[in-house]
């Protein structure tokens, strides 16, 4: 059985997740995606690839979209992480989430959390993005269902630029 190593002790990670501070014992080699899913129970954060290739695990780290699957959890000490679960208020979807729902930006829904978080980051810094700006901001997020057409429409619906 895997005995906890004396040499590589876990450390106490202090991290703000979706607005609430947490403290957890975390190994140095633990990826943020595994910490969020397995320790914090935030399974909205998805794993689609073997590292850094699909964007499904995109979360916001201090407001910037990053890939949780190639981010060491312990490097997020004292920082703020936002996941898809943090966007809703009192269980109600944010405008962006609602738009992804209504415009069918989500089909199978597996890329959706990453896609929504990358869109959220875009809209916070640029509330009225053009199609090309949306494409640039979502360039690292793969979707296999939609052909991206309705994803762009979803983001634009919130930007108030939809035709």
């Amino acid at each position, binding site marked *: 059985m895997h005995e906890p190593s004396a040499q590589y002790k876990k450390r106490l990670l202090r991290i703000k997740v979706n607005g609430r501070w947490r403290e957890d014992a975390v190994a140095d080699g633990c990826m943020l995606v595994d910490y969020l899913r397995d320790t914090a129970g935030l399974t909205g954060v998805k794993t689609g690839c073997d590292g850094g290739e699909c964007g499904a695990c995109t979360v916001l780290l201090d407001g910037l979209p990053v890939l949780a699957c190639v981010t060491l959890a312990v490097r997020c000490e004292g920082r703020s992480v936002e996941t*898809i679960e943090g966007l809703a208020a009192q269980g109600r979807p944010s405008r962006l989430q609602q738009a992804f*729902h209504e415009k*069918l930006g989500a089909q199978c829904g597996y890329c959706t959390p990453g896609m929504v978080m990358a869109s959220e980051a875009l809209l916070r810094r640029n509330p009225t993005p053009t199609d090309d700006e949306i494409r640039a901001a979502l360039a690292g997020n793969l979707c296999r269902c939609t052909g991206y057409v309705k994803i762009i429409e979803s983001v634009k619906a919130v930007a108030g630029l939809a035709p």
Partner: protein
Amino acid sequence: MTAAFASSRPGVPLIDGIDKVLGRARYTADLDRAGALVGRILRSPIAHGEIVRIDTARARALDGVIAIVTGADCDKTYGVLPIAMNEYPMARDRVRYCGEPIAAVAAVDEETAQRALDLIDVEFRALPAYFISKDARAPDAVLLHANKPGNVEREVHHDFGDIEAGFAAADLVREHRVSCAEINHAQIEPHACLADFDPVTGRLTVQDVSQVVYYLHLMLARCLDMDESQIRVIKPFVGGGFGARVEVLNFEIVTALLARAAGGRVFMQLTREETFITHRARPQTDVVLKLGMKKDGRFTACACEVTQRGGAYAGYGVVTILYAGALLQGLYDIPAVKYDGYRVYANLPPCGAMRGHGGVNTRHAFETLVDRMARELGLDPFAVRRANLLHAPMQTMNGLMVQSYGLAECLDVVEQASGWKERIGRMPPGKGLGMSCSHYVSGSAKPIHFTGEPHAVIHLKLDHDGGVTALTGAADIGQGSSTMVAIAVAETLEVGIDRIRVISSDTAVTPKDNGAYSSRITFMVGNAAIDAAKNLKKILIAAAAKKLEAHPDEIDCAGGIFRVGRGGQAMLSFKEVVAAALVDEGAISVKGSFTCPVEFQGGKHRGGAVGSTMGFSYGAQVVETSVDEATGMVTIDKVWVALDCGHAINPLAVKGQIEGQVWMGMGQALCEETRYLDGLPAHASFLDYKMPTIVESPHIEAFIVESNDPNGPFGAKEASEGALAGFPPAMVNAIVNAIGVELDEIPATPDRVLEAIVQHQRKVKLAQKKARS
């Protein structure tokens, strides 16, 4: 049957969509796995060889290893067709591709499981391995399967009409050869399975990513030698399928075997690499296609030879090679069709069904040759298609029934929307337009496992709360089938969709359904849902009639209000009628079913069931491209596509499906391919498998054409596959239009395009030289 153009109804968001956008939808890997062991699979490092020895002693001795299973633990084959199940969940005496499962471990954690795999000793005696069809078919090649001489899994020879007379009657006969690379579904969710075996009751519960919950249930019983009644299979949210999960997969059975061996719960999630290796997607295909054409564009005959490199096991192979021939028909009027198909075994992961199953690569060969010949004859590509339209209702030579046919309208719509007439021949340098047509079945009219049961069954439950619960085995894998069921029930009952709750794919609860494949759900399950709702409505009307002291025929029901006659004074609300209906009866359960009549189940020739369907969807599209001749980079600027789906039950979802399928066709046409290096996958990541990103994905303008199929639910047909096959040929035709260079291979990767440009320039120079001398 005339088609109505487009649909002005907006449609409704998916009934499970809000769970997805909130991040609370639970996929297999998100389920509570408290106490679950971690399962990992040991995979073959060689492409072909005999297993001389497997020694698991060292691994078993490792602390934390709870169970190990090998091929010795399961002597039952599994597969798709009852006649072609030639695959074991773990190899027994021989491995036939790199990555084939050999053994598996359940351990307390990931590290221990991985260390245990490293401690399993396997000795092989290597055999020659074949990675292309030609090598596998060589006379002296070692057979992958002793009963398949020449390593040909299935040969098909079909001949309809007078092929020689057809070619003799043609003004122009041309033949060309195209090669389409193998591709993969690449659904974003990696494969995963959570299996729970209770050693006390002997029951097995499996939660899994399957599109075919019923077949999985069946195969688990077979491979674990269990009574079916002791098994339950549940489908949580599924992150896409596209055919990847349309047959039972080795890891599913292996996880269940591990759970039984461990006497508990085992969770297995495959890596992306393993998900690619599990494969079952579109085979590498060589097509030689010959077409006869009159000066006015009429087809006179078509001869087609298809060779599919199917991988190491049967899987869906026989079906795929039959589809490739059967779907030559049902789109256009062709007086004579000859088809020769060869499904070849090779030492690569087994291919299977993928969106557009079987039809895509032959359609590509056909539609690109039509354009070559149209150019030669000076005909407009639209005119050639229009010269060969079918007239519904009709039956094709190979016994396929065409009951509704909106292709003419599809052609009109995309011709107009793309500005084809004004723009073709006037495109700036490096830019081109191309078009193509395609079609697909709305469900295979003959199920794989013939049992005599209906093709689809739905249960509706109505109780004191006034909520209608639809129980369906149809697997919603993101395509929106549960929403379709809810709409079908709600519209038939004339109540709001909020009153309907859909429970899908739990074999302990929902009636058996064959699953999400061959675009069968809307047509078959939709019809069953309407049938069930009609049966429920009868009960409600009878109850209302009794309460209102009227004859049931007098009861008018609209908007959830029941009254005597239209505009009658006495009325009952839906809840009042439900209360009345429950009196003396209690909770109501009704059922609806649907069966494809035997006359729709295909021709009498061998293999004639494949391709048979109650209704074909039809698509036409125009693709606009730019080609950078210096680098060979192809850009898709825009797509206009029209799909005749009979009737759009949910126009929003139909548009989403049209966009998605066209885009998936674009991936195959432009950049996706699976490649192997001595049998090892060189594409098994999302970096190396080039699924298009949002950056190079164009705007797709989708139009719905409604031809109102006489047998479809509300007139509907399938809407998820019919337009896919049109993209690759429309793109290749557009590339020719842009730069005058023909491509014989897809995908049109920049290296292939540049090579074709260089070859073309060489040819042109040679011709000029000849002309001078």
